[in-house]
């Protein structure tokens, strides 16, 4: 372990604040602590195996006391990007943006332009769901074979982030066993969409990623 420690120590000097901070929680200074901070992104086969569920979580590390006051931002567009052709350029998007007490969804739809700037693709299939209030049972909607949810949930991410920080800081040489889940007891604001596979390529492998985009 001496060699490991030495190498890690050197790497700290070289890499500076190079830190593993959760899955993507508080990952970058421009979005940290804002409605645009995506904490996690999941994509998995749904309970209906003909569908894929997408989860985009934002605004991490919400304490129970803070969760009731947390809200989605009407100027922040959350966009799920789907590349069906293998070139890492989005062929389809699913967009989510709040208005009032509802989360509106558009797509899956071919975007009018790819890349860093988006408009809301109102020609795509339009859906909406009431945003679930903290403390209320989950409200879900279905439309065109899709399912929708928006609201606070338990943060599904788990990791002993605190001990990783100690290791990187040179204060420890090992994780603990058992470790301690730094994200236990904290919430996120979640958007969950379940989509028939037939609407996003049908078969094979797709490449997906989540983006937050701010109104200019």
């Amino acid at each position, binding site marked *: 372990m001496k060699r490991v420690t030495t190498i890690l120590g050197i790497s700290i000097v070289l890499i500076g604040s190079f830190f593993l901070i959760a899955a993507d929680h508080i990952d970058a200074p421009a979005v940290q602590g804002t409605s645009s901070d995506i904490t996690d992104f999941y994509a998995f*086969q749904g309970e209906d195996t003909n569908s894929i569920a997408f989860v985009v979580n934002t605004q991490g590390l919400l304490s129970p006391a803070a969760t009731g006051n947390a809200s989605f931002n009407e100027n922040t567009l959350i966009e799920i990007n789907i590349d069906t052709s293998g070139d890492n350029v989005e062929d389809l998007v699913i967009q989510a943006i709040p208005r009032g007490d509802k989360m509106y969804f558009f797509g899956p739809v071919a975007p009018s332009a790819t890349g860093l700037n988006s408009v809301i693709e109102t020609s795509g299939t339009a859906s909406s769901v009431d945003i679930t209030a903290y403390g209320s049972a989950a409200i879900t909607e279905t439309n065109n074979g899709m399912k929708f949810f928006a609201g606070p949930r338990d943060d599904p991410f788990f990791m002993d982030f605190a001990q990783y920080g100690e290791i990187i800081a040179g204060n420890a040489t090992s994780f603990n066993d058992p470790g301690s889940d730094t994200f236990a007891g904290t919430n996120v604001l979640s958007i969950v969409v379940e989509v028939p596979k037939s609407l996003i390529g049908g078969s094979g492998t797709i490449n997906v990623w989540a983006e937050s985009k701010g109104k200019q």
Partner: protein
Amino acid sequence: MKTIKSILGIALISLFTLSSCSSDDNTIVIDNTPDFSGTFAQQDQMGRPAVNTVFVGSASKDTFNTTIPSQQSAAFQAMFETNLTGLSPAFANPGDQNALGQDAATFTGLLATDVLNVSLDGTTTFFDGTNVLTGRALADDVITVELLLIFGGEDFTENPNLSDDNVDANDKPFLSSFPYLASPW
């Protein structure tokens, strides 16, 4: 706003339209359609878990978030490789590989394009011992998988103190049905 709503008592008049219009010009326009106009510019981006936080130097994190995936590998693979070989003794020597048989250049070449690969033909998991990068399920222990691929060496046995955080599951059980995530604390 609740007072306004109850006074009007008309469900057709949407509260959000009122507020969004009034914030623009203080003129209340009765319109059932929310305003979806405008251009939205990219701020954050995420494909695979922890990629930006682990492999991107602090000065470049915002730039990484605003680089489109098709351009990320060209812009960031070299930085990823430098950071990986600096961080992990399992990649300190030429020829070192992870358990997927990837050397530092190959591994970071994969990760630098920060998209999540998803199979539409079956099991979707980050890594379950058999399937690799076919999605990301809620229960996947992605951090231990990444620690193993970073620190675990060719057979997942190197640096055992660093390759598992020993937190293997969420603090609440997931739901079997939509919306799958557990209710908030």
